[in-house]
């Protein structure tokens, strides 16, 4: 070792940029069934290696294998498939609606639908999800009305959020879906606080929160892990590692130095690293975390390994910073296709039914869009301007009262 070191500044660089050959070998993914399933009430120290392994249930032939294979009623899997299909169809239609000027903004969750859909079906009505903007599947799995989504996205007169919030930053309390905001990461601590309140009240309600891979860099994420650890908060803290944060690959969140799920270790929390494109693995891992929380053993951190197939948002062109065919090289396939193949393998689904359901769901989405368009799209219809002044405080103070009068609304 030299002791007259002259340093050099390291700047991470992804394996492939546009024109390059995608390579995901750095993910070190293990085959389905390879990782042991410890009992959910195992003590922390024995769980240390878990986030460095990989929970995966569906194998290459779409069969459920290994110790994590869950017992999910066929009905539930079919509901999951339907919600994933609906999410994908809705995303595609809304993305196009943006191109036609009907909304100011949209973000797709293509390739990541299995995570919120499985978890939404698994958690109870009283539990609360603290979402990111990329978990529409949660609402779809709970049959949130398509009309309300469309009207919010079009910011029209019937917008359930009264024109105050950016498209897709929904709030749906009755569906266990906490208010979204544009600030990354800031609701992670709310989830932990909500879970602490549930414990304080000797209640049985869980909190589940999502952050993206990029967002794990924010201080809020680390504060939330500390609080969750200190107070044994009944929370399930999820990282949707879709490999990209706009143009920055996950290496800029430190994912190349250690798996993001392994952040759990330093906080004394159990951490799981899970195939995020595998409906069954998501289900099994979440169930494990629920059982653990229900045994009063506190929070679990779960990293879901997935891939952001679409651009970041309607403002983004991903071909500027990553190979255009990178999605095809992602080793975990497509979550919708994998669940479909699993159901076909079990004899509960086939191509005809799939085509018929696609057609039916597309019809539902188109009908909801048409109704939304009849009310009005961005700029053609909006809630009454008086709504701008409502809800700042519970009771309006003199400032908004005077200003409303000045505007004459």
């Amino acid at each position: 070792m030299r002791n007259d070191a002259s340093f050099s500044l390291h700047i991470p660089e992804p394996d492939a940029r546009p024109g390059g050959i995608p390579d995901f070998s750095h993910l070190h993914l293990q085959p389905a069934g390879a990782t042991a399933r410890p009992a959910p009430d195992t003590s922390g120290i024995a769980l240390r290696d878990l986030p460095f392994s990989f929970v995966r249930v569906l194998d290459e032939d779409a069969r459920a294998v290994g110790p994590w294979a869950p017992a999910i009623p066929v009905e539930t899997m079919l509901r999951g498939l339907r919600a994933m299909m609906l999410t994908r169809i809705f995303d595609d239609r809304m993305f196009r609606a943006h191109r036609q000027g009907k909304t100011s903004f949209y973000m797709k969750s293509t390739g990541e639908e299995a995570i919120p859909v499985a978890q939404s079906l698994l958690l109870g009505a009283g539990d609360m999800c603290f979402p990111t903007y990329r978990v529409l599947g949660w609402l779809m799995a709970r049959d949130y009305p398509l009309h309300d989504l469309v009207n919010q996205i079009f910011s029209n007169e019937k917008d359930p959020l009264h024109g105050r919030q950016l498209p897709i930053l929904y709030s749906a309390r009755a569906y266990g879906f906490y208010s979204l905001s544009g600030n990354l990461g800031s609701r992670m601590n709310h989830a932990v606080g909500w879970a602490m309140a549930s414990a304080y009240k000797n209640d049985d309600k869980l909190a589940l929160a999502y952050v993206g891979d990029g967002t794990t860099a924010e201080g809020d994420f680390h504060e939330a892990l500390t609080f969750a650890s200190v107070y044994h908060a009944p929370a399930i803290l999820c990282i949707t590692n879709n490999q990209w944060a706009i143009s920055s690959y996950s290496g800029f969140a430190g994912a190349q130095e250690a798996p993001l799920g392994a952040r759990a270790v330093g906080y004394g929390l159990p951490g799981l690293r899970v195939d995020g494109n595998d409906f069954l693995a998501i289900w099994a891992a979440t169930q494990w975390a629920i059982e653990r929380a229900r045994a009063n053993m506190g929070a679990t951190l779960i990293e879901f390994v997935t891939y952001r197939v679409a651009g970041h948002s309607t403002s983004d062109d991903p071909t500027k910073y990553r190979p255009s065919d990178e999605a095809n090289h992602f080793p975990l396939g497509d979550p919708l296709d994998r669940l479909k193949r699993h159901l076909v393998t079990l004899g509960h689904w086939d191509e005809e039914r799939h085509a018929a359901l696609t057609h039916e769901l597309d019809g539902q989405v188109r009908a909801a869009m048409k109704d939304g368009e009849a009310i009005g799209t961005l700029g053609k219809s909006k809630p009454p301007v008086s709504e701008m002044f409502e809800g700042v405080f519970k009771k309006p103070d003199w400032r908004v009262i005077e200003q409303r009068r000045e505007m004459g609304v």
Partner: protein
Amino acid sequence: MPTMNMIQALNSALDVMLERDPDVLLFGEDIGYFGGVFRVTDGLQAKHGKTRCFDTPIAEGGIIGAAIGMGAYGLRPVAEIQFVDYILPAYDQLVSEAARLRYRSGGEFWAPITVRSPYGGGIFGGQTHSQSPEALFAHVVGLKTVIPSNPYDAKGLLISSIEDDDPVIFMEPKRIYNGPFNGRHDEQLKSWAGDPTAEVPEGHYTVPLGKAAIVREGKEATVLAYGTMVHVAKAGIEDSGVDAELIDLRSIVPLDIETITASVARTGRCVILHEATRFAGFGGELSALIQERCFWALKAPIARVAGWDTPYPHAFELDYLPGPGRLAAALLKVMED
């Protein structure tokens, strides 16, 4: 002389400074390979190398904290915060650290950092891509806050900010990155081409911090504005028919108090325009200063035109952002008084 829009002028300022000073380096979310979500750093990594212009983790407190550390070492870091709405996780670094490092260390350490960040409304960006938090910075002693309104100033002010030995928040009016919208929010964008302020020298030049610009001379009233609102003010003055003097503050700290007081002393009337919410906005400070210094010259109460006191409302953007109509009405009102 080349014609540049605001983005090209900012890019040129950064390019010039990377070329001139090896201690200048740029970092922020998505600014390296990709060149930034608004393309302000486009091409700079390819030209100057990965360690001169690079991406960061999504951690605004980390970005500004690291910038302070680099600045204390002796570098001149230029950090980008992707939208100024997202600077708040770094507020403690700005308030408790950058702003006081020189003072509390008896001059041993200081933070010669520049924090660039797009601000303001007009792009249907909703609550967290539209805000104008300049008052939050102006209130903090030890921070400078600069807000250009055109490409020429943008480049010259950015170079001055980078060369300044104190921390500077450089707020970029994203609504006019690509063109002055002639102040009328609901009309089509017009490109910067043909505007005299889009004639931008290629090399190094500075526009000093703390020197306001008189955009339009007038005798009957003074209008104070900065950033996007300079263009709204131009349109509003035109609509009102009032012979108003328009002052573009260019930086709110340091503030060009001489130019302001000289103008109001002459005109006797003043309207202050900003898009930030009105209550405790920077207009309140301007109003107090003018009242303290020009009271005996005033012929009418000072008026403020500002964003309403609500969070930024997505669907009501055009109702919320002050437009020429509201400025014109305020001007006519101060003329009556």
